[in-house]
């Protein structure tokens, strides 16, 4: 098996008729992902890349048996599409768009939790399982099958880490983009739990960045994990690290700096990677190739 995406995942693409949606559908298909259709309201009845386009998610689910969806819809329409998708009973939603309003994300997150849907993003490259398929925009060239899991807050850094691993003959079990926004639909500890439970994953790499509290709040989970964990935090010299305002962090005394994250992660037993390239050595030390 793998995390989130597997042989039974049947994917629809929302916003499939758009410029990016249609191109990415082609890339997903060429990576052998089971894409079964798409949705663009008002364009139902057409086809893209030979796949049927529907007016509504409900219809798409009924006609194709889809159980997962990846979004290429404009940021302003994302909340609408999200509620529709959850209502249609889709269990896995990958929200690729960036610039989704944070207040919308709060509501999407609450909506998904109340109804038991699992979602990644916004601003996520998606999820990729080498040899099985991908939902999102990850470039296939960087990935190779194997037994290391990667969870990344940054899209591009997830490619970087997968690329470095692949070059070192260390394959990946599943690579997951958490999403780069200040509020994401699924928190880091919940993703770590999936990898800890995945029989095809032997170790996990966290690719974090300055700001927020995801890494600090994952410490408890990491402390309880059997599998080795390493972590890289970008933004030591960042001039802009999104400060979420002191009042929020103050509640729990977190500060969101790289140093604070390093301290919390190291205390929990994770190996700190000073530079992405260090991941190769770590993988080799843990015989992960």
């Amino acid at each position: 098996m793998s995390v989130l995406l597997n042989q039974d995942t049947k994917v629809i693409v929302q916003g499939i008729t758009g410029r990016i949606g249609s191109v990415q559908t082609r890339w997903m298909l060429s990576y052998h992902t089971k894409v079964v259709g798409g949705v663009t309201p008002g364009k139902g009845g057409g086809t893209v890349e030979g796949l049927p386009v529907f007016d509504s998610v409900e219809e798409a689910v009924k006609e194709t048996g889809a159980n997962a969806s990846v979004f290429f819809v404009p940021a302003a329409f994302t909340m609408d599409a999200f509620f529709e998708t959850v209502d249609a009973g889709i269990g896995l939603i990958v929200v690729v768009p960036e610039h989704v309003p944070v207040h919308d994300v709060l509501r999407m997150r609450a909506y998904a939790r109340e109804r038991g849907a699992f979602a990644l993003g916004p601003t996520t490259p998606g999820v990729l399982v080498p040899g099985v398929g991908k939902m999102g925009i990850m470039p296939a060239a960087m990935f190779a099958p194997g037994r290391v899991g990667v969870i990344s807050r940054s899209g591009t850094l997830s490619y970087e880490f997968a690329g470095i691993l692949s070059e070192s003959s260390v394959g990946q079990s599943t690579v997951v983009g958490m999403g780069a926004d200040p509020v994401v639909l699924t928190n880091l500890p919940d993703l770590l739990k999936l990898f800890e439970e995945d029989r095809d994953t032997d170790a996990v790499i966290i690719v974090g960045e300055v700001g927020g509290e995801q890494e600090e709040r994952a410490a408890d989970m990491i402390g309880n994990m059997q599998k080795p964990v390493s972590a890289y935090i970008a933004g030591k010299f960042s001039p802009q690290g999104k400060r979420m305002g002191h009042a929020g962090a103050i509640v729990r005394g977190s500060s969101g700096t790289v140093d604070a994250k390093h301290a919390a992660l190291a205390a929990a037993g994770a190996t700190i990677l000073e530079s992405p390239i260090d991941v190769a050595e770590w993988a080799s030390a843990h015989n992960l190739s």
Partner: protein
Amino acid sequence: MRLHEHEAADLFEKAGIAVPRRGVAETTEDALRIGEDLGYPLLVKAQVLVGGRGLAGGIRTVDSPDRMAEAADALLGSEIKGLAVRKVLVSDKVDISRELYLGITMDGFDGRPVIVVSTEGGVNIEETAGKHPEKIAAVHADPGASFQPYEARNLLRKVGIAGKLLVACADVVVKLYRVFTRYEALIAEINPLVVTAQGGVAAVDAVLEIDDSAASGLGEAAPDRLSRYENPIERKGREIGVTYVDLDGDIGLISSGAGLGMASMDIIGRRMKPANFLETGGGITEKLLYQCMELLMMKRGLRGIFINIYGGINPIHEGARGVVRYMEEHGLGIPVVAKALGNLQEETWEIFRSGGVHVVTEAATEKAVDRLFEILSNNAR
């Protein structure tokens, strides 16, 4: 986007929160005229988007036109923490009997807004959290639901606020929460929330940071977003749709993601100094990277350029064409190293190479930065 104090104060007042009488001045004459209208004593506050303004001398009390002229002359056109003071807020000096703190922000991990109150106002909430955590209370609000006065009263009672003040403060909390949701804010803060000698409650400072992604946000009240970028390259970056942050090094950087950009800076920073942070997001076109090159070259004294892009959602081959076209048209005279991987990477490499760009095909940014360092070292020899 963080609003200036005077902009935030206007929105708070519109929402029904009491804010001292005030005016905004760009010249000493304006400040004097406002002073005449309001009557002394008054506060003169530099309008700069930075914390710790008071300690840096950005807030002055004046009790006469002479002092007003002195203060306005001193502040207007000066710099506070590196930011130019273009405006001052002239505001009634309220008789203060007590100072409270009220802040609302996003709890990103919880996925809910958190409302924080404290009986210690006028100081950093972090400081209070360290010294007197018992003087702070916080509660989460449900996204999508309203925040009711009784919830505010329950919160305020935790820090011992009672009687008429309980009702008056709860009213401010509810109104500030309405501002927070209405304008899709990331931070809304009143510090201090002042209890006046007359028993009223007034917002003596006003902080409001709006989510840049929230289109609906300010509506007609929206200040010109571009105008807040005081650095001309940063403003230009915003115009073309990329995030550019000016730094004081000499290695230009173009990256196709924020994480990759930060990591690139971290790696460059070990042996060299980045001149900027630039991330394109997912909108790369030939034109955009041409413009990114223009942007980078607006800065004097660059020694080299590092391009670090991935072809996931981005058509990197198109981006490469833009870079090469710029180089052909302008003849840079400094080395460009590019790491470009992902979809259509081979086409991209070919285009880069055709324009004289040094292409690194390994995944690790470290290797590409090494290459640039070597080239610059060789050139220097």
